[in-house]
């Protein structure tokens, strides 16, 4: 783009009300999510943890959508893949690594749950489990509570395309629709539920059409276009905050890595397919945008890369030095314990 061309157009991020700094921070968090993910694979392969679940390819939808929330005020229900979401709302790399290694100091669950099962009371990150879709009715309940108290809090709930087949998806969206609750439903549609492709999951091209059945808008966005995701989510958040009810956002994306460390994705998809999507990497795409608008150059980008790597390594160091839970503590906290 020439300088003249640039002068003639409004940059997308400005049109969306994002400053250059915002956008660079968003980009940095996306890179941090990627770097943490890559480090998790190394830890898992190196025997430092038996399990890893990561989000390569999902950073666009995760970070950009969470960016549209009011941090510390809005409620967030991520699912196991949402590393980018929890980072965007403020979880530190160290906390993520304490979780990845199952340490006693892990704020998510103190080593009780599998990695990727997020919880952080101070950050309004609501505890999630493994059974798919159960968090969707929770989101409705959380939003109902906010509404009953007359707060303007918005609740954002995340899930995959597979989750849209579960009964709880339906019951949760229907409840939110009936009560016009301030919820944003964000579906990260990566075309697969482990090995099951979209064609076997639903007989529709766009899952967003389902929103019409619940009486609220549904939109499909390119999940690898962080700015598009941000725009769609911001609009949904504004609608919710204004008392206009829920929105369903379907962000189409792709998982570049296996489902989890227990998966072998070569059993159900071709290297060509993965490669094609790798060329649409949301991080590359945002990088290209930043460079196009002169908000980033090679030097600055490398500096970001270096900071991110440092942050990750520091997190790993701290987490590895952090103690395991005490064996007998397994008996605690089945019920409330005084004191």
């Amino acid at each position, binding site marked *: 783009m020439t300088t003249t061309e640039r002068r003639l157009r409004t940059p997308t991020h400005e049109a969306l009300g994002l400053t250059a700094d915002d956008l660079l921070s968003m980009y940095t968090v996306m890179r941090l999510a990627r770097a943490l993910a890559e480090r998790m694979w190394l830890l898992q392969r190196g025997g430092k943890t038996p399990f890893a679940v990561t989000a390569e390819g999902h950073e666009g939808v995760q970070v950009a959508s969470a960016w549209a929330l009011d941090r510390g005020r809005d409620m967030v229900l991520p699912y196991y893949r949402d590393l980018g979401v929890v980072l965007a709302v403020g979880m530190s790399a160290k906390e993520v690594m304490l979780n990845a290694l199952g340490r006693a100091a892990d704020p998510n669950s103190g080593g009780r749950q599998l990695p990727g099962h997020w919880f952080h009371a101070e950050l309004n990150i609501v*505890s999630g489990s493994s059974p798919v879709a159960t968090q969707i009715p929770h989101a409705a*309940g959380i939003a109902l509570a906010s509404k*009953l108290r007359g707060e303007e809090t918005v609740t954002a709930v995340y899930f995959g395309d597979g989750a849209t087949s579960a009964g709880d998806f339906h019951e949760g969206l229907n409840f939110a629709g009936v009560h016009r609750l301030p919820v944003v439903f964000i579906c990260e549609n990566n075309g697969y539920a482990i090995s099951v492709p979209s064609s076997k999951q639903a007989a529709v091209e766009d899952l967003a059409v389902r929103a019409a059945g619940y009486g609220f808008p549904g939109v499909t966005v390119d999940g690898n276009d962080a700015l598009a995701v941000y725009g769609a989510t911001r609009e949904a958040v504004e609608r919710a905050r204004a008392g206009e009810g829920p929105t369903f956002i379907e962000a189409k994306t792709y998982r570049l890595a296996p489902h989890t460390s227990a998966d072998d994705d070569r059993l159900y998809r071709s290297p060509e397919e993965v490669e094609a999507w790798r060329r649409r990497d949301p991080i590359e795409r945002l990088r290209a945008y930043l460079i196009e608008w002169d908000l980033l150059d090679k030097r600055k980008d490398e500096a970001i890369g270096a900071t991110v790597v440092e942050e990750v390594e520091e997190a790993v160091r701290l987490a590895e030095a952090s103690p395991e839970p005490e064996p007998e503590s397994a008996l605690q906290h089945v019920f409330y314990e005084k004191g």
Partner: protein
Amino acid sequence: MGQINLLQAVHDALREEMARDERVFLLGEDIGAMGGVFRTTVGLLEEFGEERVIDTPLAESAIVGVAIGASVNGMLPVAEIQFADFIYPAVNQIVSEAAKWRYRTNGAQGCPIVVRAPYGGGVHGGPYHSQSVESLFFGIPGLKIVVPATPYDAKGLLKAAIRDPDPVLFFEHKKSYRLVKGEVPDEDYVVPIGKARVSRPGRDLTLVAYGLMAHYSLEAAEAVAEDGIDVEVVDLRTLAPLDTEAILESVKKTSKVLIVHEDNLTGGVGAEVAALVGQEAFDYLDGPITRLASPDIPAMPFSAALEEFAMPTADKIKQALRDLAAY
């Protein structure tokens, strides 16, 4: 102090807790304008408004799931499942979510919901309006289970359940609603969860029961007293956590135990009571650990003839008491 029935006791507990604490609200099917199919919530919509007495869509998983969400966001929801028989669609939310919330957050957060459901047979409801479902949830760590027998206990335990920081399943015998009457004080009180009650002291034999069967058991105990058999009746009131101390104390005194429940025999709560006694009071026992329960069929059939055959009755309990006493 006045005589009220169990239905009224439940109603009053809900009403008083709603008045006492703004965080308390109700959700369920037909609880609003209609006041509940059993009329336990009559007048509450009028008094507290549509926001706190929510008629939900027909979706039990959402009823419990929404309650869970609201509870971790500062509210104290009381969910009604119209009949205990329809709690099964909500099992995932109850077992995977409510029961495990505190454990998986390493104690940082609880899930203070109450799930109320009318249970039990003897009302010509057929196999889908007569079930006792407690054994399905019994033994799921993280769940409290309450089954009150008297209006006093129903009111005091429901209040305790609403104030409890953890999830409580609260089962009300639908036949007891209007059948069972009793004294209830005017002032606020709670009955602690986890404590059984000796509803009749006795020396010869311990009879452990709960819910409607606690009444039939008392009736049977009084009847056999005429034959000189002095039965101690322990009304469990709370199934989980089980009041093991109260059970053992009684059995160690009497040396014999009969356990009665309306739920079918196999895998019922009675099995755990029997196992407890067989392990912890073995040296005190003077006769086989005996259970009386509904047969292993999928709840009472509709036809009166079939239903009567299936229900445990005071007569059947009397017979079992006599047999065990004679051992």
